[in-house]
């Protein structure tokens, strides 16, 4: 069983995140990733940025799937304020 904390480490090792939280049951995981690096990138490019950090784990089957919400710090603040 894969620990969500391990996935956090893989992602945090490759990009600066203001906020990073991952939940999962050992098979399926959902991440909220907040990073200034996402500014100016569309949804596809944001997820590609993260996938690049975990591609080998996905290819090996160690990680099956990761749902992602990818937000800039501003979008994250908006969501905190209105969500």
């Amino acid at each position, binding site marked *: 069983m894969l620990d969500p904390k391990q996935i956090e480490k893989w992602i945090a090792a490759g990009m600066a995140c203001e906020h990073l939280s991952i939940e999962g049951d050992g098979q*399926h995981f959902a991440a909220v990733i907040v990073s200034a690096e996402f500014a100016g990138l569309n*949804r*596809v490019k944001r*997820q*590609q940025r993260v*996938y690049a950090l*975990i*591609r080998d784990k*996905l*290819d090996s089957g160690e990680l099956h*799937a*990761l*749902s*992602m*919400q990818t937000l800039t710090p501003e979008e994250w603040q908006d969501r905190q304020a209105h969500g």
Partner: protein
Amino acid sequence: MDVKQRIHDTVTSHPVVLYMKGTPQFPQCGFSQTAVQILKACGVHQFASVNVLTEPEIRAGIKDYANWPTIPQLYINGEFVGGCDIMKEMYQSGELQKQLGTPAAA
């Protein structure tokens, strides 16, 4: 024909193509199932689908084609739109219906 060319031909010869695990009738992964449900909710009942579980070469090739390591993958008019998360977000915001040319669900 190489895999990249085959994928290119498929996505450019159908307006909507879903690369998925299983078939629209029998999806074999929850994410693929969600993708099919979203397309149907958008009013798209006829779309091309490719079952990557029966096409190992395509399964490997599609990941490089869009630089996207997971399935499902949605293509509209030859362009990669996204996977399950992006389809969900775009459906909720009405963008997906717009891109598919169907009226937004009420």
